Structures are given as structure tokens and as C-alpha cells.
């Protein structure tokens, strides 16, 4: 006879992409690279979700250009997700996008009990609307404060200062908000000066894909199930983040923008 048909109750893990679809994303195939990177990351994300009996991974996506709107509004189980391509064109209503996210992080519609949400902001430019108001509105939500907030800067025109404001300051005293990693000359915490608590610089399609993969697998894993703990990793905010993907194998990463 089979084991009784029961399982550990799981909690939802809301994963929200916040994607810049302004006109500049149409240049040099950036929007195509982003669509590809997200689509390619889905099988790995589904696998992580399956490996974790404690979580129900639900994906949504906001796109922002002239206005912000839901690209994928219904929280969708990653196993059922079919990614529809984002289209580029317009300006950069990033603040409005954060307002939209703030709307879904209040209860309701947020469930009473959940895992920390994961918010991934991807941008190649500067907000053209009231970013501060949008961020303030987002950060009034307790679930946004608890969320793992990551930011990916595509190319050298991205405003890393606003991205750092979205992430918040590093726990345990990292670089001051907005400072470019390595620029201060102080020894960085991570070997290549990168940290998941700073904007991730995707200088090319390969590193973009690596970061998207990392966010949708390693970070989803860390936010949804406890991960192996090492000495010295005791005080790492409310979710300890996994190591960034190794870019040593990709020697042109971290040297600044090449193409865009």
C-alpha cells in the first residue's frame, strides 16, 4: 500500500520580475536577451521548486516603459509558466512599476502566511517618473521589507544608484548606497567586488543569463528552504544569499561594459 497521500503544507513564494521595457532596451538585442534569459531559466527554477516541499513558487512579472503594467498578472506556478516575450518602447516608469508591486504585496491579496518574496528589478536606464515615491510606497509594505530584493543593471547606462536604493544598504556595513563596487579602493567583501546586495552588472548576454539563472534557482532555494550554513554566515539579514555565480570563467565580465 502506498504511503498516505499527505505532504508537508507549503507556503507560497512570490517571485516577481520587474522589467525595464523602455525604448533603449530595443537596442542591441537587449530585450531579446532578457526574454531568452528568463525563458531559459524556467526549467531550472521548476526543478528547484520541486526539490523544495516547503514552497509553492509563484511567478509574476511587471513591465515598465511609458507606463507600468502587469506582463504576467496572475501568480503562476513555475511548472505551468510559459513566458511571453516582453516588447520594448517608451520611457522608464520605474516608480510606477514599484507602486504596482506594492499593491500586490499588501494583505490581501498577499496570503496571511508566506515565504519571503523575491523581487528582481532589471533595468538599463534611469527612471523618468517619481522613483522615490514608488520606492517609498513599496517599502511601506511589510512584505516588501521582508523581500529579497535583487537588481540587475544591463549595460553602463543603468542608474546603479536607484538600483541600490531598491535593494537597500548591505547588512553589516557594505558599500555606501550608490557607490560603484571597487571604486572606493576598499577591500570588497566578495572576491571580485561583487555582492548580491549590490546591483549586478550584466555587461553582456551571458552574464545576464547567469544572473537570471542564479536569481531563479539559487536565490529561490535560499528564500524557500534553509540552506547549509557555514561559520561566519550567521548574521545575514533575514535571508542569507547564496554565492553569486562564478564569473571567473567568463573573463570579460566585471571589466565594464563592452557592447551596450
Amino acid at each position: 500500500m502506498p504511503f498516505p497521500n499527505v505532504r508537508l503544507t507549503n507556503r507560497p513564494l512570490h517571485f516577481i520580475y520587474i522589467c525595464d521595457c523602455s525604448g533603449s532596451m530595443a537596442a542591441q538585442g537587449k530585450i531579446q536577451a532578457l526574454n531568452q534569459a528568463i525563458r531559459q531559466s524556467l526549467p531550472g527554477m521548476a526543478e528547484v521548486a520541486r526539490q523544495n516541499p516547503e514552497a509553492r513558487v509563484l511567478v509574476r512579472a511587471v513591465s515598465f516603459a511609458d507606463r507600468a503594467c502587469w506582463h504576467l498578472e496572475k501568480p503562476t506556478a513555475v511548472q505551468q509558466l510559459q513566458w511571453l516575450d516582453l516588447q520594448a518602447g517608451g520611457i522608464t516608469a520605474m516608480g510606477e512599476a514599484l507602486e504596482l508591486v506594492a499593491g500586490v504585496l499588501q494583505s490581501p491579496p498577499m496570503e496571511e502566511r508566506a515565504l519571503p518574496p523575491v523581487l528582481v528589478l532589471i533595468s538599463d536606464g534611469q527612471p523618468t517618473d517619481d522613483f522615490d515615491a514608488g520606492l517609498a510606497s513599496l517599502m511601506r509594505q511589510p512584505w516588501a521589507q521582508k523581500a529579497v530584493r535583487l537588481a540587475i543593471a544591463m549595460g553602463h547606462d543603468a542608474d546603479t544608484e536607484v538600483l541600490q536604493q531598491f535593494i537597500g544598504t548591505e547588512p553589516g556595513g557594505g558599500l555606501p548606497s550608490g557607490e560603484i563596487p571597487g571604486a572606493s579602493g576598499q577591500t570588497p567583501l566578495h572576491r571580485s567586488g561583487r555582492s548580491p546586495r549590490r546591483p549586478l552588472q550584466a555587461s553582456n548576454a551571458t552574464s545576464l543569463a547567469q544572473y537570471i539563472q542564479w536569481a531563479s534557482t539559487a536565490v529561490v532555494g535560499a528564500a524557500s528552504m534553509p540552506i547549509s550554513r557555514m561559520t561566519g554566515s550567521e548574521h545575514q539579514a533575514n535571508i542569507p544569499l547564496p554565492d553569486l555565480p562564478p564569473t571567473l570563467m567568463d573573463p570579460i565580465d566585471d571589466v565594464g561594459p563592452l557592447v551596450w
Partner: protein
Amino acid sequence: MTWILPEGACLDLEGIPGPVHVLHGLGGGTQGQVFEVEVASERLALKWYLPACIARDPHLERRLGESIRATTPSDAFLWPLALVKPGPGTVPLLRSRDPGFGYLMELRPPGFVGAHEHVGGHLAISLLQVLRASFFLAEAFHALHLKGLCYKDISLGNLFLEPSSGRILICDNDNVDVDGRDLGAVLGTPGFMAPEILMGLARPGANSDLFSLAVLIFRLLTRHDPLRGRRELAIRCLDEPARRRLYGEDPLFIFDPVDPSNRPDPIEHAAALITWPIYPEPIKQLFEQTFGAGLQAPQRRALTGQWMTALAAALDQRQLCAHCGQETFPAPSDPGPLCWSCGCPLPHPARLKLPHGLVTAAAGNALYPHHFDRLLPLQLKAPLAQVEAHPSQATLLGLRNLSGQTWRAELSNGNRMAVEPGQTCNLSPLVRLTTPAGAVELQS
């Protein structure tokens, strides 16, 4: 994925003679990447560490070297076989600035799936095999601890099961250390870590392994977590500080016999409430001990040998409900047992009386050498006999001779007959079997 070792390449590696042919990458995580390789026409797995992992864990290489010299405690471990470092010709081929090192191990055989598949309810597996898997897990830690070693970081993530046999494999043996020496950086995984480790009051070792082992057995047997009851419902966002409260600062077993304040919620924690009544009292007592007094007092935790005894005894009393067919585990001393699944009374079963034990006559139950000789260690891998249903008449039970020697059967009409190896002897007319291991008597 970008693979550190180029697929298809033949690498010269220090640590083993002959080249290593990298066939393809199998997977990667934050620690390193695993490849399928061919060495001297043998297929093996090669784990290669990322530089960040080596930097965080300065004694990793030394521990691995010592584990390799110590050799595997049992066949349940995918144990490191050889430590390898890149030879001069290999360094330029690696897609990493720091050459690093890795180790060879056996490939995980097909048929083994991650234990999370069972806990997540994705797997069809019988209670028999879940109890066997729990026994094999306790047995593996027994062997590891008897070698003076400890594992430190057991969790669902490094346990694999074969659903058809209950056999297990323990992977990621690179944190193994001599107990008490503490040459490692790993602390464990929250939810499986003992409270004193999570709170930073002690370092992981064999005593904290005993806590993690109990959590893992609990999760296998119930598909639930031992410390997540009503107190969890008060937690809105289950993040690190919340896990620290649940598992470290203020842990309370959901079935604590004295304090019922963290009982499972009937809706949110139904799995625990449905599965807990299945198991015999001695198993429950080991959980109560480990998650009761053992929460604060590591030396009070149930030992590996106690788990083996209780789990093997549960398997001996396994009985199939005549009404619903479900596997039940009533104690022989229980005067009026009911099926945990359908609630029907369980009739008094036929039992096989052995020199050291009593085994219920139910299809799938087996007799092992330890049933005949008290001095033999408990083991569930090489049965001498197994109870089986007749292939076309399911109600007819027999005992198959799995030993290599002939048995003599004494029937109720006084006749005697031989039961050759591989043959099955009908239990209904049986009075007594004489085997070279000892006597088997039928008790109706």
C-alpha cells in the same frame, strides 16, 4: 551552465594514475560542479570545487584526504575515493583562474531519487520501504559514528532513496570530520540543525548528528516537520529570524507529551496528524526523547542503535488490514488494535516465533539472521526467508526459503517435508520449520 572542466577533454590529474576523460557535466551548485568521467574504462563522478568554496573552508582538502584513507563506513555513502588536483597540462584547460581540486566518487546508480520527492508527496512508496529507508539511515550513521566520524550537515538535500527497496544513499560527504576535532566550516542546515548549533552554543559533531538524524527520520515517516505546529501559524513571513525562533530559541516538539501548546493544526498540518498514529510506541518514544529532553541535553538524544532496534521491531509487527489492505503496525501486546486508516478492528494475526523475535505473517515481512542469533548485528539486507502471497491465491501465505540450505517442515497432520532453497512453504498447515539457523514455529 559554464563548466569548469571542459566536456570531452582528457585531463591529467595528480592523485590518480592515467588520464581522466570528462564525459559531461551532471550538475552544479554554489559549492562546485559534478561531472561524469571515465577513468581506466570505469565510469565515476568527479566533484570539482569552486574557488569561493575552497576559500571558505580551509581544511576541506585535509578532511577529504583523511576520509579517503579511512574508507567508507558502509555502502550507503557515496564516499570520496580519490582526491585529485590538476596536473601541469590541465591547468590551462580549466575555466577558472584558481585551479582548485576535486574528488572522485561512484556515480549515483539509476533508480535513486532525492528524499525530497517523498517528503513532497511526489513518490509512490510503501510504508514498508519508508521504514526500511529510515532503518538504513540509522544504520549508516551507526557505522559512521562507530568509526569516530561525524557528518555535520545531514538534510533532505543529501539523502537519496530507492523506492522499490528502501535502500538509501548519502551524498556530499565532504563535511565528514573526526568527531570533536572541528576542522570544518559547516554548521548544518536550519530545520535539521540541533538547537545548540543554531544558537551558536556548540559546534556540530556526533551528538548534533543524532538530532539531525531524528529530524530526518521524522520527516520520512510523517512528511512533516517535528517542530512546526501551532507556533508556526503565528509566523507570517517564514524567514531566518523566524526559523531561528522555531528551531533554536524556543523549540517545542509538536507531539510533546507534557506541553500540548505546539500541536499540529488540523488543517495546516494534517500530514502529521494522519501519519503519527501509524507508528508503534517505541518509535514515538524515541522522538519524544530526542525532541523532548534531547532538545536541550544532547546526551539524552536517541542513539543510532536504538533507532535501528525500534524500526526493525516495527517491521516485524507489520500487518495488512484485511478490510482496506493498508500496512499497520500493531504491537503483539495490543488487545484490540484498530487499523489507523479505515478504523476496522485488526484480527489477531498468525505470527512466526523465532529464537529471538516474533514476526507477523504478512506478505513482505522477512526473517533475518538476527532473529535467530542475538549476537548478530541487526541488518535488513540479506533475509533468510520472506513471507509471500501465493501468485494466484492472494489469501494464501507462504514462507519462501531465501537461504542456501534446505529446511525441514513439520505439518499439522504430522507429515514432514523438505523446503529447498527458493521454494515457498504454505503457512496454513505448518507447525514448525527446522532450519540450520534455528527453528521457526507458527503461532496462530
